[in-house]
């Protein structure tokens, strides 16, 4: 990243109220290309609301989210026209759900799941789509022989890999992940994290990862936001926040982790 380069995504004062109930309040941050930002906090702290707000899935009550588009420079994602925003969401962005069944098309084969985004942006050559699908299965360390199997025949970890492959096939610049390792057992989690770390580094992806697992945050993210009751209480470099937390809540969070 050259010094002084503009951020890829910048949130300013993002606030979302569900009627009178605050989801997140006055959240501001920047993400630069290739950077991984972790968001940690307890359940109900507004992590997912914030993620949805910055990924154009939920319009905030107030505040702006600007994204540096490839051609037109920074643009407010809620001010741009809907076709442009939807195109961005299925090409430049990826979204990995905690539950892979939300992010996958369960009725069609793994190959079709990976190929969908390519077809959505105009790929019309079956052979090429298939080749790309096989390539991505390989990249997420799945057996290419299972390309024509339906996702429900896969284990949870494999479904999560498939979801990641499906999102990365259009070479997005930023990926939003909501608890990508939630619900997986620790050894599968470790392999998935290893894979994610490799992919993010190889592809120069920017990523926003929401998690309540501090180990995940430590492994993947460069910077960390700690959220509580909808507000960011502390932000900084990952090791700085985790090893030398300043805010009492961050201290509580870090000290709550069991060390076996």
């Amino acid at each position: 990243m050259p010094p002084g380069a503009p951020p890829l995504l910048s949130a300013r004062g993002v606030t979302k109220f569900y009627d009178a109930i605050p989801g997140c309040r006055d959240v501001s941050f920047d993400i630069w290309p290739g950077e991984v930002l972790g968001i940690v906090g307890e359940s109900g702290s507004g992590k997912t609301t914030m993620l949805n707000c910055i990924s154009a899935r939920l319009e905030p009550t107030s505040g702006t989210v600007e994204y540096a588009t490839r051609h037109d420079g920074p643009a407010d994602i809620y001010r741009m026209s809907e076709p442009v925003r939807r195109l961005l969401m299925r090409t430049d962005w990826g979204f990995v759900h905690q539950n892979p069944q939300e992010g996958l098309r369960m009725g069609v084969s793994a190959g079709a799941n990976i190929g969908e985004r390519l077809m959505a942006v105009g790929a019309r050559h079956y052979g090429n789509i298939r080749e790309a699908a096989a390539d991505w299965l390989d990249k997420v360390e799945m057996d290419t022989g299972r390309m024509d199997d339906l996702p429900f025949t896969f284990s949870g970890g494999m479904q999560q890999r498939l979801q990641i492959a499906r999102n990365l096939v259009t070479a997005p610049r930023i990926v939003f992940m909501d608890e990508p390792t939630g619900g997986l057992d620790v050894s599968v989690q470790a392999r998935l994290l290893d894979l994610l770390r490799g992919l993010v580094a190889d592809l120069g992806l920017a990523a926003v990862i929401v998690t309540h697992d501090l180990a995940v945050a430590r492994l993947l993210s460069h910077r960390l936001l700690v959220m509580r009751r909808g507000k960011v209480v502390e932000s900084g470099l990952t090791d700085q926040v985790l090893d030398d937390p300043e805010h009492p809540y961050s201290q509580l969070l870090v000290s709550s982790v069991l060390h076996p």
Partner: protein
Amino acid sequence: MTEDGYNFAYLDEQTKRMIRRAILKAVAIPGYQVPFGSREMPLPYGWGTGGIQVTASIIGRDDTLKVIDQGADDTVNAVSIRKFFARTAGVATTERTEDATIVQTRHRIPETPLAAGQILVYQVPIPEPLRWLEPREAETRKMHALEEYGAMHVRLYEDIARFGHIATSYDYPVRVNGRYLARPSPIPKFDNPKMDRLPALQLFGAGREKRIYAIPPHTEVRSLDFDDHPFEVQTWDEACAFCGAADSFLDEIVTDDRGGRLFVCSDTDYCGKRRAAGHTGSATRDPERGGA
């Protein structure tokens, strides 16, 4: 003779006016599904309530109506709809495609090419081509509005991955006038090329789903495909057993329980005319093979 106690063609004039407005809008925006206030008709949903309402709104006293079901004029659905209009509108009916001004159809386009001035009315069960991909109506409308049709190819991809070729053989999705994606109702894909630049007006009515759409005369209709798996229609190794036609859509008829079967034209009018003109097929030349 018109049955007493009914308005001409069953529907009241206000309803017909409402449906005609929907049809006009549909013709103006080829392939776009126009919502309309579908009425209860004296037959069950799924039997052609949409087609009947469209026909009832466009039919006049001078029209000649032909009704086909799977290509045949003599099946229950075709006979009862034909009778319905003979009773409620007193219009002339015919089985000859070229004599009809309105052809209401379920599952086929007649083999005899339709001419300018004729109207083809389709009975449509599910009008939304994206329904298979997206269950939310609000979302499919948005996808139509923004021309987000790429995902439709997922279905074709899945066909090739499973069967080695595009196995969708009926209700094959088409792009109308380079814009709206439409379902041609459950006609075999054999008939899809006939829709392209057809000189006749094509109207589609979905009664249960309350949608009308249209393909105006001479409009481009393109079937979706892949560059390396182009659109193809069904072919048969045999010709029609009755009339010897090699260019028509054939139905397979099981004739006994020892594996005997016949392939015959699904379009009874086309087959009958060819036989009247002296054409013969394997079964009509050799009665031992059954049939005829």
